[in-house]
């Protein structure tokens, strides 16, 4: 019995140490990144976030320059506004496409599709969550980009006479819209599954009450069930948004990887912060001054901060959302 108590104690300590491991990992990560990023911030200051020119400088020049006490290659200047805009715009498009589709799909799954079919359809939708991002990239290159360039793009650009940003040359199919759609497909399962689960937890009583008061079935779902699950759903949307912000490979493969200019229309090539880190890390390694590497680290820190804030929001909303329905899962 005594040894059992000791074993139990050891277990508890081990478990406690394990429990704080994510904390330590995150702390370590943050320290390394901030330490790496600091020289770039000293060099560039806040114009890092407002500049549109990214130039690692002439590494083959024989001199180096010093700015604010930090050494860099001649011509080096780091502005990531196009990457920030690319990240926000592509993820926003993803949200605009994914949210209605996911919500309507969840409505259908919960209230219309017979349970015997839901058993098959739900796993199919959720399968999307497990597909590797390079496979999404592959699909984007082989199927989606040609479709946008030849089919969807030209059709949408006709609408451009009425709606801004839709007009203009459609280009190669690699760009903002393609990235947005690929990201949308990647986050649809997240929003659909969460909304479905939340809606299933909504009690039947208020919905039936609304129906009895003369609401149509869709109205009762839209005006009664959804408001009850609303905050939880918003949380799921933000969670999906976070995923879209940080996606690297799929975007790298379909975004057109623009540099030094802001997107002009829906089809413009873009770069995101995550894809930029991936595509420029190699060249940055030959920067003798290391400044280019520091600048990439600063992008990483920025991305980390953004994902932290979105997660904080999502978490709060999901928690409050669950309280709305009255189930603490």
């Amino acid at each position, binding site marked *: 019995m005594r040894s059992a108590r000791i074993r139990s104690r050891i277990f508890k300590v081990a478990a406690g140490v394990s429990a704080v491991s994510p904390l330590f990992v995150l702390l370590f990560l943050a320290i390394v990144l901030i330490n790496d990023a600091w020289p770039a911030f000293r060099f560039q200051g806040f114009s890092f976030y407002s500049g549109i020119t990214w130039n690692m400088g002439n590494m083959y020049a024989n001199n180096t320059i010093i700015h604010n006490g930090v050494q860099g290659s001649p011509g080096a200047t780091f502005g990531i506004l196009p990457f920030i805009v690319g990240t926000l715009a592509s993820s926003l498009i993803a949200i605009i496409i994914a949210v209605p589709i996911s919500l309507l799909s969840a409505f259908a799954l919960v209230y219309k599709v017979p349970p015997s079919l839901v058993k098959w359809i739900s796993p199919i939708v959720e399968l999307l969550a497990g597909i590797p991002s390079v496979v999404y990239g592959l699909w984007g290159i082989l199927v989606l980009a040609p479709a946008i360039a030849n089919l969807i793009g030209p059709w949408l650009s006709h609408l451009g006479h009425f709606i801004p940003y839709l007009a203009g040359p459609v280009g190669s199919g690699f760009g903002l819209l393609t990235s947005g759609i690929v990201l949308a497909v990647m986050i649809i399962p997240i929003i659909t599954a969460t909304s479905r689960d939340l809606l299933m937890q909504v009690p039947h009583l208020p919905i039936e009450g609304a129906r009895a008061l003369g609401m149509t079935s869709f109205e009762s779902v839209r005006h009664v069930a959804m408001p009850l699950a609303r905050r939880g759903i918003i949380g799921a949307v933000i969670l999906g948004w976070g995923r879209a912000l940080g996606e690297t490979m799929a975007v790298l493969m379909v975004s057109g*990887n623009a540099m030094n200019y802001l997107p002009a229309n829906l089809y413009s090539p873009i770069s995101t912060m995550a894809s930029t880190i991936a595509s420029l*890390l190699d*060249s*940055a390694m030959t920067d003798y001054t290391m400044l280019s590497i520091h600048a990439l680290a600063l992008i990483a820190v920025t991305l980390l901060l953004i994902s932290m804030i979105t997660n904080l929001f999502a978490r709060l909303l999901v928690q409050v959302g669950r309280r709305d329905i009255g189930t603490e899962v």
Partner: protein
Amino acid sequence: MTNKFKKASIMTITALIGAGALSASVTMVPAFAKSHRAAPVVKLQETGSTLLYPLFQLWVPAYKNVAPNVQITPSGTGSGTGIQQATDGTVQIGASDAYMNNHLIQQNPGMLNIPLAISAQQIMYNLPGVSKNVHLKLTGNILAQIYTGKIRYWNDPQIAKINKGVKLPHAAIVPIHRTDGSGDTFLFTTLLTDTNQAWANSISYNTSVSWPSVSGALGANGNNGVVQTAEQTKYSVAYVGISWLDKGLQGGLGEAMIQNRAGKFLLPNNATISAAANAQVGKTPKNERVSLIYGPGSNSYPIINYEYAIVNEKQSSPTVAAAVKNMLLWAISPTGGNKSTFMTKVHFLPLPKSIAPLSKAQINKIHG
């Protein structure tokens, strides 16, 4: 029922993990067994240039027959990574399309830049209405103006002047560039630097440069991305590594004749590439860190380069040093890695006879 299922799933997971461990150990056993019998296995790692990667991939199986106890693992990560990993000692051989810059050499004086072969780059374009039999003529200076947005249309007087008889459309040119760091960008921007003063002053050359913003300009990832983007984009122009030439032509792209320093317009082929290489033998210093772009010679194609192995002359042990040395000597030998069967597959050319000794001398510096 559920219990049974739980057991089954635990078993599945254990089986998965067990299978992993088992297969790992199964593959290990012969490796160990072999190492006890034959000469000790030496493992060499190569990483870097994605342009050199296919060639290394061709070399590895062939070299297995030459030196069975040497296991070479090549990987394509990018020239910058190749240089850094070789400098760092993580890999024995780094591969790079660009030679190391002076700063890096000063910092790491023991690093050798050893040319293994000659590569080239062609300019391709998507111009509907221009016959496939016609090769458009372009100059580095014109390309620089296209990529800075000074020349906007295909029927610009500067282009029309050197392409008499070709009906050029009044369509906006779409310049395409690589967005990932790449040797192709290094070569192309070197040509622009050599032929256009404004480019030299503002942008210069590197594996990744700060592209001027030209409305409609496109970026693409990797040579494949460039070719695919060019195929899908009418009125585009792009620089493409020579290994992708066939792919581009099959996709309906045109191949431009580029003006060399002597003023002649040439296509890249065995004759013009080797002429360019031979013309610059005297210019190549002992450390072989030199640009071959826009070289002298009337029949010299202007965009060629050395493909480098980046190697630390001091290796971790005499055994490793010997293995690296032998591998590289084989690679540059006309009967070994520079054999035409390897070269033609990637459209590279062997090192000129008079350059090979310089590479050999560098390789012989490698010691344990």
